[in-house]
């Protein structure tokens, strides 16, 4: 599973939007911020809730369940109650396809 896999289409995601996709049982959130695409595990590291249910504010994703915040580019925690960084995936664009790499 070490290759880039297609997860979504460029046209699926508008600027400033975040959406959820699956590769097998793995939920993956993809967002577009200032034209760049970022992909991260779609589960808050606090209690596994779905992050893409929350709001995207620039590079910041805010979990709507308990208020935790992360940077979508680096995975860094920006606000409690989460303390563990978010898993972020390398992204590659190939035409209209968004590819990500799960290690």
């Amino acid at each position: 599973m070490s290759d880039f896999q297609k997860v979504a289409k460029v046209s699926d995601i508008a600027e400033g939007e975040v959406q959820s996709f699956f590769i097998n049982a793995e939920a993956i959130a993809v967002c577009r911020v200032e034209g760049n695409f970022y992909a991260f595990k779609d589960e808050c590291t606090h209690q596994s809730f779905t992050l893409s249910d929350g709001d995207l504010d620039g590079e910041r994703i805010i979990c709507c369940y308990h208020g935790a915040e992360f940077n979508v580019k680096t995975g860094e925690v920006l606000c409690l109650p989460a303390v563990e960084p978010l898993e972020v995936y390398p992204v590659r664009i190939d035409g209209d396809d968004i590819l990500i790499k799960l290690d």
Partner: protein
Amino acid sequence: MAIVFDGTRESYVEGLSEFLGSGRNTLPEWVTDLRREAISGFGNTGFPMLSDEEWRFTNLDVLRRTSFSIVGNGISDVSEKTVDSYGFSGLSCVRLVFVNGRFASPPSDELRDEEGVIATSLSKAACEYSDLVRNHLARYADYEKDPFISLNTSYFEDGVFIYVPDGVVFEKPVHVLYISTDEGQPMFVNPRNLIVVGQSSGAKVVEHYVSTSQNVYFSNVVTEVVCGENANLEHYRLEFESQKAFNFSTLRVNQRKNSNIASHSVLCGGALVRNNIHPVLAGEGCNSDIYGLFMSEGRQHMDNFMRVEHASPHCDSRQFYNGVLDGRSKGVFHGRIMVHEGAEKTDAKQTNRNLLLSDMAQIDTKPQLEIYNDDVKCTHGATIGQMDEEALFYLCSRGIPMRKAKIIMLRAFTNETLENMSISSIRDALEDSVMQWFERRLENGSGR
């Protein structure tokens, strides 16, 4: 014709009429009524949410948003040779085979012996031994509150039916093999098993789940067990399915007075696994021993949910669950001991031990005691760690190479649960497959 479910609650509720009209439902009319009743349970609950305390560690959004279909014709594309390859060498047993949730008659040894022991498919039994099946089917597994039991009750096509009459000890293990094949689209299968062991009787049942290819499907198993007075049952659940499968299973046991049950689970396959074990010690003086071993790697998620209900006095229960986790996998052990009012002199013990082989693996353990009686002895314990460095050092200092030392340590750890199996050929085969699994992990650089 495939019946397609898009993941929404409506699709599973509304799909039932299509299923009933499709000819896949070969069970008698009273089961149809049961199915209709059961689906309303799912209609009320849908798939559980994380905010539901019993599902706290497993996010099921993936089920809500993935399509599955009821499809396929059973045995047609599985050769007898393939079936034989899943056997246990040296084991003399009664073998029953199900392919994609449907009974495969030719490779199966149906049984109805002179003592009255029956081992056959549930769909046949529901017609031939209607009263017997009707007395027990769906009487224990709660299809109103549990959404997976509700779906299984609504959509099951077949499964095993085993009946041992009063006073008969059936020594030969019954090996029930559930094979999943690639049907070209993610399928939804619902094996349903019913095991009835009469008064002062005994049986050994091995449920064995395998896949012929690494494909995506949703397997939702429900097994109901009735253990009569003074009866002994040894039950195995061996789960070696596709690494991409969604595997949900429930074992619901009803124990009468002075009965004994030993349950062994070994979980190895599946992308998302939920293993529910729920014995109710309903009569006085029961004994329940529950052993489990789960091994995960990659991004596997294995959620073990135990609920041991002490409802009568003088019952003992023991739970021993060991987990070995590698890669980025996540394990869950959620064990609840419930002691009801009136269940005096309960003696319940629960142990969960976990070995983390990688820096990325994670374990969540939640051993719970729920006690409504002041005359009980209940303990629980959980440990989490890596291989004991001192022990490894000791072995190495005695001239054993590191790799071998690790294998010895892992064998000791996994044998804590496997050694309780009474069927030696199965125990040996499992030990081998555990070792093979671990050798593969070592080759990938894990197992520090």
